[in-house]
C-alpha cells in the first residue's frame, strides 16, 4: 500500500464529517433524512437537510466484515435471509446499535427513490413505521423500451414539484429556488469531475483499479451538492492526472483490462485485487460507479432531473443495458467482463444470463465470467468458486493474448 495521498486524507475527513455532523446537528436548522442511494439530494441540500444513506452505511458494514452479525440480528426478528443484505445489515444496526461508524443519527424523515429497485420501497415503508417519521417516495417507472416515455417523465417531474412543498412541510422551512439552482450547479460540476475521474481508466496502463473507485465514490454518493465533495474530486483528479503523466500503473505490467458488472463484494475486495494482480489483470471500470454520473441541464432543472434520476441503468431495459456494456467495452478497450450474480440485488442481476448471451452473439463479444455472490453477506459467496471461475475465465485469455500490446476488438 502506498502512503496515504492528500486526496485520501481528505476522503477520510469527509467520511468522518458525513457520519458525525448529523449526530451533532441542531435538528431545527439541519434536519436529518435517510435516503436511498440515488435520490435528488439537491432539494435536501437547498434546505440544509443532512442526508444519510443506509446503503452506503451497509457497504461499510460489509467492508468491515460485520455483515453476518448484523444481518442475523434482523433475521432474528423475522427478516428473511432472501431479502437484500443491505437492508438486513442496516436494520440489524438499528436493532443492535452496532456499526463501523458508531451508527446513523436518527432520521427526521425519509426519502426513497425506486430508480434502483423495488426493495428500497419496502425497506423504507418499514423504516417509516419503525421511526414514526414521514416518507416521500419518488417513483421513477421502469423503462422497458429504448427511450423513456414522455408521459413517464412528466409524472416524475410532477412528483419533483410536489416534493418541494412536502419538504417545506416536514422541515418547516421555505424552499429557496435560487439556492437550489446553485446547489444543482455544484452537484453538476462534481458529477462532471467524477465522470472525468472514471474516464482516466482509458489510459494504458490505468492509474487505478475499479476497487479504488469503490472507495473514491463515497462523496459523490453521500455529499453530492456540497463544496467539500467538489473539492475532493478536484484533488483526486489532479492526483490521478499526475499519475497518468508519470505512467504509473495500478496493476504493474497491466495486461488484461476488465469490466466489473455489479455491486462490489465489499468484504472480499482485497483478495480479489490480489488474485487479479497475480495475472496482471486490472478491473478498470464498472457499471456500478457510473450510476452517480448525474448531469443536469440547468436551464430546465426539474425536467432534466426527472430524466437523469429515471435513467439509472438498473432501471432500464435489457437492450439499453447491453448497449451500455458494448459502449464501455470499446471506450475502455476491454478484454473481458466479470458479472456479479448477486443474491441480494435482484434487479441488477435477473437477466444477466441473457445479457451475456446477447453480448456473445454481438460483434462486441469478449470472454465473460459470472460468479454467485452477495455484496454484504458472505454466507452467499464462495471464494473457491470465484477463484476457479476466474481461472477458467483468464486462462483462455492468456492463450489468445498477444504477448505485448492489447488485443483489439473489431
Amino acid at each position, binding site marked *: 500500500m502506498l502512503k496515504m495521498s492528500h486526496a485520501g486524507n481528505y476522503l477520510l475527513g469527509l467520511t468522518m464529517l458525513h457520519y458525525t455532523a448529523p449526530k451533532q446537528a441542531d435538528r431545527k436548522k439541519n434536519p436529518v433524512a435517510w435516503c436511498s442511494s440515488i435520490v435528488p439530494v439537491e432539494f435536501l441540500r437547498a434546505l440544509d437537510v443532512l442526508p444519510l444513506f443506509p446503503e452506503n452505511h451497509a457497504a461499510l458494514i460489509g467492508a468491515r466484515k460485520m455483515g453476518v452479525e448484523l444481518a442475523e440480528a434482523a433475521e432474528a426478528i423475522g427478516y428473511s435471509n432472501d431479502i437484500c443484505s443491505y437492508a438486513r445489515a442496516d436494520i440489524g444496526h438499528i436493532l443492535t446499535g452496532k456499526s463501523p461508524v458508531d451508527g446513523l443519527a436518527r432520521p427526521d424523515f425519509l426519502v426513497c427513490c425506486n430508480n434502483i429497485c423495488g426493495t428500497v420501497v419496502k425497506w423504507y415503508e*418499514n423504516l417509516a413505521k419503525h421511526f414514526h417519521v414521514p416518507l416521500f417516495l419518488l417513483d421513477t417507472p421502469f423503462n422497458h423500451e429504448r427511450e423513456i416515455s414522455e408521459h413517464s417523465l412528466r409524472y416524475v417531474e410532477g412528483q419533483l414539484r410536489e416534493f418541494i412543498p412536502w419538504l417545506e412541510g416536514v422541515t418547516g422551512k421555505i424552499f429557496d429556488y435560487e439556492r437550489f439552482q446553485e446547489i444543482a450547479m455544484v452537484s453538476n460540476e462534481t458529477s462532471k469531475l467524477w465522470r472525468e475521474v472514471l474516464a482516466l481508466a482509458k489510459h494504458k496502463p490505468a492509474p487505478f483499479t475499479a476497487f479504488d473507485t469503490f472507495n473514491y465514490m463515497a462523496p459523490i454518493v453521500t455529499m453530492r451538492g456540497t463544496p467539500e465533495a467538489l473539492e475532493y474530486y478536484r484533488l483526486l483528479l489532479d492526483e490521478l492526472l499526475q499519475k497518468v503523466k508519470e505512467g504509473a500503473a495500478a496493476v504493474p505490467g497491466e495486461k488484461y483490462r476488465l469490466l466489473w458488472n455489479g455491486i462490489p463484494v465489499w468484504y472480499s475486495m482485497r483478495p480479489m485485487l490480489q488474485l487479479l494482480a497475480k495475472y496482471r489483470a486490472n478491473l478498470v471500470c464498472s457499471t456500478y460507479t457510473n450510476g452517480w454520473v448525474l448531469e443536469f441541464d440547468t436551464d430546465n432543472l426539474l425536467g432534466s432531473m426527472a430524466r437523469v434520476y429515471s435513467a439509472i441503468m438498473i432501471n432500464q431495459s435489457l437492450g439499453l443495458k447491453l448497449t451500455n456494456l458494448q459502449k464501455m467495452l470499446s471506450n475502455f478497450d476491454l478484454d473481458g467482463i466479470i458479472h456479479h450474480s448477486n443474491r441480494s440485488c435482484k434487479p441488477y442481476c435477473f437477466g444477466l444470463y441473457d445479457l451475456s448471451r446477447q453480448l456473445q452473439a454481438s460483434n462486441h463479444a469478449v470472454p465473460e465470467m459470472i460468479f454467485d455472490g452477495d455484496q454484504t453477506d458472505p454466507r452467499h459467496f464462495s471464494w473457491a468458486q470465484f477463484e476457479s471461475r476466474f481461472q477458467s475465465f483468464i486462462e483462455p485469455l492468456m492463450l489468445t493474448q498477444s504477448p505485448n500490446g492489447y488485443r483489439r476488438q473489431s
Partner: protein
Amino acid sequence: MESVLQSLLEVAANPSSEVSRWRQRTGGKVVGWLPIYVPEEIIHAAGALPVSLWGGRTEIVRADAHLQGFACSVVRAVLEYGLKGTYNMVDGFIFPSTCDHIQNTSDIWASLFPDRPKFDLVYPANRQSKAAVVYLEQLFADLEQWLEELTGQKVTSEKLRESVKIYNCYRALLADLFSLRSRKPESLSGPEMGQIVKSSLFLEKAEFNRHLSDLLPWLEHRKVKPAPKARLVLTGIMAEPQEILAILDELGGAIVADDLALGARILRAPVREELPLPAALVDRHLRLGPCSTLYDWRKGRGAHVQHLVAEHAADGVIFINMKFCEAEEFDYPVLKAELEEAGIPLLFLEVEQQMAAMGQIRTRLQAFLEVLGKGAGS
C-alpha cells in the same frame, strides 16, 4: 348442481384445455396477464379472454438458463411454461410492474419471444401523487390501444360499461362466496374453495357469473366436512400448493377469510359505476390495497388482517410466504410484531410452487392447530 361445481373444478385443474376450447369456439384472442393487478375489464371489452398467468407446479428445466434460482417460483414457472409451449394459445401478454422479479422477467421474455405481443403495464407506484392520475389515464389508454390492435376490435364506451357491470357482478358474487365460507365453512372443502376462485381466472366472466349464481343457493345447504376446530385467516400471495388446503381440512382448520393476492386482494374495490369511464378504472386502481406490492407508508396490512380476524371470529392467522417474494418478506416482521402485540396467534409457512414434500408443512400446521386448540396465545 354437483355437475356445475365439477365443471368449475375441472377448469381450475386443467385451465389450458378450457382456454383452448374458448379460443376455438369464439375465434377470439387470449390475453395472459401476470400477477397481481390488471384492469381485466378493458381486455374483456376488447373481446379477448383475460387469463391469469400465475405460474404453477412444473419442474423447472428450461427456465434455469435464464433466471437464477433466487427468483421467486412464480416467475420461474411462468418462464418455464413459456419455453415449453404451455402458453401457445395465449396471443398477448401483460406484465405489470408488480415487483423486480416480474419487471426483469418481462425483459428476459422480450428477448426470448421478440415476436409475441407484450404490454408492460408499468403502474405509478406513488399513488398519492396528483401526477399519478394523469400517468395512469395515459397508461390505460395505451393498454386499450394495444388491445385494439391485438384483437382488431374497438373498445367502445358501451362495451366497456358492459364489461364493468359484469366484473362488478363477479366481485359481488365472490364476496357472497367468501361470506358463505365464513358463515358455513362446512359447505365447501378447502381445495374446492381455492379451485372455484382459480377457475374464475380462466373463464369468461359472464359465464362464470352464471355458474356461480346457480351454485350459491345450493351451497348454502351443502355440508362436506364437520364444523371446524379452528377458524383461520390466510394472508400471502396465493394458497399454493393446494395440498395445504386439503391438509387443513383433515386437521380441522378452516380458512374463513383471506388476504391473498390471488384471492381477496384482486377482488376488492368494485368499480364506481357512477363515474365516467375509463376514469372509473383509474379510480379503482388508486383505491386498491392494502397489498405488499402497492406502496403504503402507513403499513395498513396489519390493521386489515386484525380487522379480518375480528370480523370473522378467527382463532389465528397463517402467513403463507412465497419464497423469495421480498414484498411479502418485508411485510412479515411488521405484521408479526403487530399480531404478537394484539395477542393473535400467527404461523409462518414458507412455500414454493414447485415444492412436492408436504411433510414439514403438515407437522407445522398440526402443531399450530394444537396450540390454537389449547387456546394458547389468546
